[in-house]
C-alpha cells in the first residue's frame, strides 16, 4: 500500500466514523448525563426502547419534544433511586400501555406481533413448495417440439 492510498483510506474511515456518529446523535438534556457510567448505559438502553408518544416512531432517546424530555427525566430519577429496568418499564406501561415499548415482551397478548413474521414465512414456504411441485410435473418448455415434417 502506498502512502497516498493509505491517507485516502484513513480519510474515508474518518468520514465514515463521522457519519455514523451523526446518525446516532441523541437528544440532549441540560445536565442530562448521569454520573455513574453504568447507570448512564442502562439509561440509554431504556430510553431507546421507550416510544415517544407524540412522534410515535421515535424513541424518547431520539426525540426533542417536551414529553420525551419529561420521560427521560423520569427514567433518570428512577435509575438514581435504584429502580430496576423492569420496574421502570412497568411504570411506563402502567401509564401509557404496551405501545410505549418498542420491544414488547413475548406474552400471550403479544403473540400475534411476534408470531406474524413466522406465519408469513411458513405461508410463503408453503406456496413455493406447491408451485415447485406443480411445475416439476409439467413437461419442460425447452424440449424440442416436433416440427412440421
Amino acid at each position, binding site marked *: 500500500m502506498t502512502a497516498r492510498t493509505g491517507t485516502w483510506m484513513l480519510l474515508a474511515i474518518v468520514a465514515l466514523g463521522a457519519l455514523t456518529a451523526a446518525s446516532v446523535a441523541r437528544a440532549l438534556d441540560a445536565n442530562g448525563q448521569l454520573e455513574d457510567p453504568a447507570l448512564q448505559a442502562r439509561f440509554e438502553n431504556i430510553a431507546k426502547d421507550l416510544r415517544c*408518544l*407524540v412522534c*410515535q416512531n421515535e424513541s424518547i432517546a431520539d426525540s426533542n419534544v*417536551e*414529553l420525551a424530555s*419529561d*420521560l427521560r427525566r*423520569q427514567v433518570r430519577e428512577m435509575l438514581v433511586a435504584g429502580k430496576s429496568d423492569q420496574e421502570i418499564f412497568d411504570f411506563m*406501561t*402502567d*401509564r*401509557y*400501555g404496551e*405501545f410505549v415499548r418498542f420491544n414488547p415482551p413475548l406474552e400471550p397478548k403479544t403473540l400475534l406481533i411476534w408470531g406474524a413474521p413466522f406465519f408469513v414465512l411458513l405461508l410463503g414456504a408453503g406456496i413455493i413448495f406447491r408451485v415447485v411441485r406443480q411445475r416439476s410435473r409439467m413437461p419442460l418448455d425447452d424440449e424440442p417440439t416436433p416440427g412440421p415434417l
Partner: protein
Amino acid sequence: MWKFLLPFAAFVALAVLFAFGLNPNRDIHALPSPLIGKPAPEFSLTDVLDPSRTVSNAALKGQVYIVNVWGTWCRECRVEHDELLAIAQQRVVPIIGLVYMDKRDNAKQWLEQLGNPYTSVAFDTDGRTAINWGVYGAPETFLVDAGGRVVYKFISPMTPEIWEREFLPRIAAARRSGA
C-alpha cells in the same frame, strides 16, 4: 376449488383490514389508556388562578368528575373551549382543568379572555402529574367515577355529540356504581 377460494379469502381479509385501517374517522394517534378501570392517580397542585390555593383530586373522592388536560399552545383546546363552557353551564359534574406544559400567566389570560368552564384549574409545573395520567398530548378528557376510578378517556376536542353519546351515559353509570 382452492384456486378460487384463496383469492376470495385474501380479498375479504384485505377489505376488513382496510375498513379498520383506512377509516377516516379513526384517530391513528389515539391510544387506549391502561388507566381505564384503575384508581385515578392522585395529584395535588397549585391553582392556576390563585397559586396559594391547592387543587387536589383527593378532595373529590365520592364524586363523579372530569379531568380535562389542556394548554394554551394547543390549538385543538381552543376548538373545544366553547363546548366545555356549554357543558359547564349544564352543571352535570365538576370539571377539573389540568394545565400542562404551559406558563401560568398564559393559562390565566386564556381563562380571563375566553371564559372559565372549570371548577378549578390545576397547574402541572413539571409534567409529573401528566405522566402519571399517561397524558401524551392535549386535549385529553378523563372521566372518574364516584369510587375514584378512571372509567373513560377521550383524546380529541370535545364536541356536543361526544358529550351526549360517550360522556352522559357513562356519567349516569358512574354515579350508580361508585356511590
